[in-house]
């Protein structure tokens, strides 16, 4: 940092040894972080890719047989892979927009002055702060077909005639989980967007209202452009997190009934950890990573342009 501010004349006077140490210093300071990242992120990634090219079943640790792209070919012909991919797409394209919308509405509300606002702002973060397993267990009880509050509530309102086994019925299981995930994730958007809202100068709104802009127009031309950068980052982060998370599904249904709530990360996990088929599980994980990368790159290109 200081280098840039130094006049070039002084640089020439620096003895060679000091210049060298200056050149090395940034690398030396960065290296611990880089080494740790390489060791705990990059190395397992390479290992996963390597395993995906082998027939590797954990309870036969001595058979590590090269099969090339065999696992990938098998995955593309695997019915469960396509079912899981379909669910993953449904899951991501509904969960994230729902979270974004709910988060946006919440942030706009929390940005209005009202009594006890700091308390409301603190409370809203609770779903986000709870561990996923706690959330999953809580919602399993909410959806329970015998004692669950969801059924009780809907029955009393007369909206349904008999209790619905939300998580055991293949038509409702995925939707029920999506609702849970929406509830879990919307505070993240709310907090991010709220921060974005607070960075928009009040004077813009004052100027707009003097010019006679309606509330909607103020929202459309001041608020939205003001928070679009934050929203883009939040959507990107959330997309990656939602795509990779399977803990809530795993606890709530374990992928069942049948394959009704299987998603790709869950399928990879079940294959690797329960069936101990690490070769095939890794292949699914690698395929999913590639798909996700395509989506992320495409998204960055599109929204990056729009924001700038």
């Amino acid at each position, binding site marked *: 940092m200081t280098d840039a501010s130094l006049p070039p004349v002084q640089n020439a006077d620096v003895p060679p040894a000091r210049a060298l140490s200056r050149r090395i210093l940034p690398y030396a300071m960065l290296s611990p972080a880089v080494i740790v990242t390489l060791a705990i992120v990059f190395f397992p990634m390479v290992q996963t890719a390597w395993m995906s090219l082998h027939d590797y079943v954990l309870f036969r640790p001595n058979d590590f047989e090269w099969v090339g792209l065999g696992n990938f070919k098998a995955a593309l012909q695997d019915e469960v892979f396509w079912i899981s991919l379909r669910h993953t797409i449904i899951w991501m394209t509904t969960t994230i927009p729902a979270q974004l919308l709910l988060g946006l509405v919440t942030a706009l509300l929390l940005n209005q002055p009202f009594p006890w606002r700091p308390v409301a702002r603190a409370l809203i973060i609770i779903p986000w702060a709870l561990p996923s397993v706690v959330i999953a267990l809580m919602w399993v009880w909410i959806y329970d077909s015998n004692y669950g509050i969801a059924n009780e509530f809907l029955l009393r309102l007369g909206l349904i005639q008999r209790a619905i086994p939300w998580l055991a019925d293949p038509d409702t299981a995925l939707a029920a989980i999506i609702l849970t995930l929406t509830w879990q994730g919307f505070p993240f958007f709310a907090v991010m967007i709220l921060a974005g809202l607070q960075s928009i100068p009040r004077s813009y709104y004052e100027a707009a209202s003097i010019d006679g802009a309606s509330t909607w127009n103020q929202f459309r031309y001041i608020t939205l452009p003001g928070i679009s950068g934050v929203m883009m980052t939040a959507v990107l982060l959330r997309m990656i997190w939602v795509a990779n998370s399977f803990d809530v599904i795993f606890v709530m249904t374990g992928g069942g009934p049948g*394959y009704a709530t299987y998603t790709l990360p869950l399928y990879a996990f079940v294959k690797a950890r329960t*069936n101990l088929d690490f070769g095939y599980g890794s292949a699914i994980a690698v395929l999913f990573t590639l798909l996700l990368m395509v989506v992320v790159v495409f998204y960055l290109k599109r929204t990056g342009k729009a924001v700038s």
Partner: protein
Amino acid sequence: MKLAKTLGFASALALVAGLAQADSTVRFWYHFDNADNPMDALIAAFEEANPGIKIEADNVPWNSYYDQLYTAIIGGNAPDAAMVKAFAQPRLVEMGALAPIDDELASWDGRDQLLDNLLELAKGPDGKQYYLPVQYVVLYLYYRPDMFEELGLAVPTTCEEFRDAAKALTRDTDGDGQIDVYGFGFRGAKGGHDHWASFTLGREGVSLTDGLTSEAGVAGTQFVADLFQTDEAFPPSAPNDGFQEIIGGFKAGKTAMTIHHIGSANGMVEALGDKVSAAPVPECGGGRWTAFGDESTAVLANAEDKEAAWKWISFLSSAGNNSMFNAATGQLPVVKADSQSWSLHPQRFVQATVDSLPFAQMLPNSSATADFVNTVWPTSMQRVLIGDITPAEMNAEIAELFGK
């Protein structure tokens, strides 16, 4: 490793010489559903009798017990001794994860104290002994005598009678148009294969490794599917129901029958008093099948001090201690003396267990069994129940797994 071996050798020497005992720690994994965990008392008794050996016992949740165990073994972080079931043995032996205990057994005076045949049942696929039985149960049918009496029903002894009873018992008791009681609490999630097996594997010529795709085999799966889809005699949540749900449903009076073992008897009596009884599972298609629920302990191959680990597991299967262990798990002791003095369960449940022993069976001693229990059975059964695949397709899938 070299250091570990040297240390192990040194401690063995010290023990043999009867001099000061080397300190060693035995890491033990087990799984108890029961919240009243007796392990601390057992450990205290053991450590007092064996100064120099420390027991570190971890209660690992059942749902992921084997996932964790296999992963720990591969990761080189396995416990020194663990509670294990027969279905996992072929796989554990294939992994080279178990230490044989034939020599220790030969010189152990507790050997003759064990119930007959149990050691034989727990023998490894290669003829060596790895497992030391610690408790056992046999699955039977729980039913509500009060509901049977109210409807003038007899306890079912065949599948046909069972189906009639289940249909009659499924009813709206308070006239609000909602079904309040279901005939049978079926376990459609992991662990429910025993329910399905009782309706399927007793049929003539049907077993997991043979005849499953025959007409008789498919009829068993069809029987389960019909009970759920046509008769609606299971709670609608049956495809996802596990241990907690079937036991909870029965205790709460939501179901009139279910299948489980004596381990849940005391809890049932606490909730229902005299309104719960037990009988052997019905005969289906000419035969009966029920699960022999085994539980053993084993020393793992990587144990640092195998002698200490053996001392601990044999302690759990010795007279008195075994009683204490089973008092908490609610299962039955494997030691003759403890078995004779057993008074911790009401007689009717012990009787149903004894009556079920003649046709109780274990799952095949094959490495496919673990996949059958953990993924293939639960997924395919759920798919049949929700109408995704046919019973014939389910049986074909299982037959293929065991045919590999």
